[in-house]
């Protein structure tokens, strides 16, 4: 927790740190190495209960790796990932479970789950963490409705008497299936897909597929929903709808949201809390206002490597112009523009630089305008 303290900018109120007092998920000292490559280095952050938390950073910053660790697709090299049901940090229980060597402790509505010890399907089934994927993964050959029923697999298996009752055609299963269909229909209404319920998922347009993935994840009744770039490829209208959907999920369904997103419009508008990663380490952590003005964040987003410097004058002017515009008063979405514009520049360099990612200080020459304005704001 020490590095979190280091990073805290002065002037944060206690209300702003509510995610530290009541986190649904705590990532503690998470490190993930692939061979010699450190994708995530000693990362710690909290996801507040009921919050929408955004994980942002340039391409290759290790965001999806964090997701894969949280949802059990990767086993972290080091670190602890704690998922909590019920209110408060429950520090005693966490310590008890950690020391006992068990994977989780769960009773009634309270529970502590050490995700790094659990298998991916257990994480969804027991710890109730659901996720979506950057490159949508639907069951394309199955209908929209079937997709949502597959998501309710575990309760339905129990209802079908582990298939034995189902084969014999017991009525209890048909009742359970009916309830499952109703729940699916509810989410289809919410995501505006009810008319396409009997179409194969692969037939849906792109935006609808993204919504269906969210609906499918919600059918697992998650306490934490992890969304990997949910707005990627959406048009502005779809993007707005998505924002509304996420807010609805958060407010009405006792579900916290952790999302990776490049679209700063979405991030700034809906997030309660933002964590910024660069080269696998956290460079900023706070509410949107604080993060937006954090010089490290601006440097990370606008920074350009020396050898990578762009010599096309139009582009440089473009960046300068947009950065120049971004006064604190300007709208968040506008300010985000240069960030997404410079994404490709940093992205190209991530791989070669990844080796040094553990080091806190890196030599990074920013464009003139970037440094000037970034330092000033």
């Amino acid at each position, binding site marked *: 927790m020490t590095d979190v303290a280091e990073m805290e900018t002065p002037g944060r109120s206690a209300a702003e740190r509510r995610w530290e007092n009541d986190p649904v998920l705590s990532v503690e000292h998470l490190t993930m190495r692939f061979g010699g490559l450190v994708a995530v280095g000693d990362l710690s952050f909290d996801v507040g209960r009921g919050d929408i938390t955004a994980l942002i950073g340039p391409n290759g910053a290790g965001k*999806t790796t964090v997701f*894969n660790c949280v949802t059990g*697709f*990767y086993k972290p090299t080091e670190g602890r990932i704690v998922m909590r049901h019920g209110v408060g940090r429950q520090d005693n229980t966490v310590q008890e479970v950690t020391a006992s060597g068990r994977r989780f402790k769960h009773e009634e509505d309270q529970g502590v789950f050490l995700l790094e010890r659990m298998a991916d399907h257990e994480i969804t089934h027991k710890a109730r963490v659901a996720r979506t*994927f950057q490159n949508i993964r639907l069951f394309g050959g199955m209908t929209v409705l079937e997709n949502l029923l597959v998501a309710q697999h575990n309760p339905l298996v129990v209802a079908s008497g582990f298939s034995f009752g189902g084969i014999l055609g017991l009525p209890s299963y048909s009742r359970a299936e009916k309830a499952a269909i109703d729940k699916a229909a509810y989410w289809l209404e919410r995501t505006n897909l009810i008319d396409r319920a009997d179409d194969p998922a692969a037939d849906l347009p792109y935006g609808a597929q993204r919504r269906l993935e969210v609906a499918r994840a919600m059918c697992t009744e998650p306490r934490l929903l992890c969304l990997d770039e949910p707005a990627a490829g959406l048009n502005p209208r779809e993007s707005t709808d998505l924002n509304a959907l996420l807010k609805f999920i958060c407010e009405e369904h006792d579900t916290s949201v952790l999302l990776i997103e490049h679209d700063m419009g979405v991030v700034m508008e809906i997030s309660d809390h933002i964590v910024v990663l660069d080269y696998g380490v956290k460079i900023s952590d706070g509410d949107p206002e604080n993060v937006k003005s954090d010089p490290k964040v601006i440097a990370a987003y606008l920074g350009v490597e020396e050898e990578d410097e762009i010599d096309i004058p139009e582009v440089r002017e473009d960046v300068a112009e947009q950065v120049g515009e971004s006064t604190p008063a300007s709208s968040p979405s506008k300010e985000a523009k240069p960030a997404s514009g410079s994404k490709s520049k940093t992205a190209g360099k991530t791989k070669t630089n990844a080796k040094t990612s553990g080091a806190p200080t890196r030599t990074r020459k920013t464009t003139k305008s970037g440094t000037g304005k970034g330092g000033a704001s």
Partner: protein
Amino acid sequence: MDYFLQQLINGLTLGSIYGLIAIGYTMVYGIIGMINFAHGDIFMIGAFISLALFLLVTSVLGFAFLPVVLLIVIVIAMLFTSAWGWTVERLAYRPLRGSFRLAPLITAIGMSIALQNFVQITQGARVKPLPPQIQGGITLMEGSTAAGDIVVRLSYMQIIIIVTTVVLMAGFSLLISRTSLGRAQRACEQDRKMAALLGVNVDRTISLTFVMGAALAAVAGLMFLLFYGVIDFYIGFLAGIKAFTAAVLGGIGSLPGAMLGGLLIGLIEVFWSGYFTVEYKDVAAFSILAIVLIFLPSGLLGKPEVEKV
């Protein structure tokens, strides 16, 4: 020790034959990602063509000088077997390119069944024994111990097999690494669509891959014929699976891997038969296949595949 040495030599010989077949599997898998199930049968056809040619050249045309005979047989058998390799690809695989991956696997099995039965019908089901053509060898070790006489021999046949394999391998590696064909092949392995966009004739490159694989299988067929002296229409199945095992063991897609895998499978099989039981030698080969695929799916020299989420 002597027994061990003799088995070692025998194993290397058998391994060379497997290696030559394995190259066909590994190249095809590398370039279009399918198991060419019919490749073992191409090897069998190569053996039959070699047999017919051998008899034609020696008894009908009357050549007697063995090196010349072998040279003629090798060259012509390679040509004719290549035609089979090309035809199989053209008929059974090319129409399904870009289709679902199960489809070419089924056509490959169908082709394998068809080729076996074709040869069974046209050449008969009985085994064809060819009397040993190349006699003699070098005695590496001789003497007698308390346990009995010991003789370790390296026959001329084994020398020919090993030397031919080494020469072909070297030539082949050069072909892949130096020529434009090899470059086209490697490009197709990486990304077929992009290669096509850059002007590589993908269909022709794939065809040539099958042709080269078949040519090497023909050489393996001839070696098998000369070394064992017995062939039948069914030899392709087992040899094919073992060669595929070799390709997987070495790391599929890697030429040196195929050769290394071939040698290892040959050695394992020979030592297993020599020290344990002959009956279960195929079980040994199959078990290795299963174990390698389960625990080391990228093989000894292959590149590991990372699961993307």
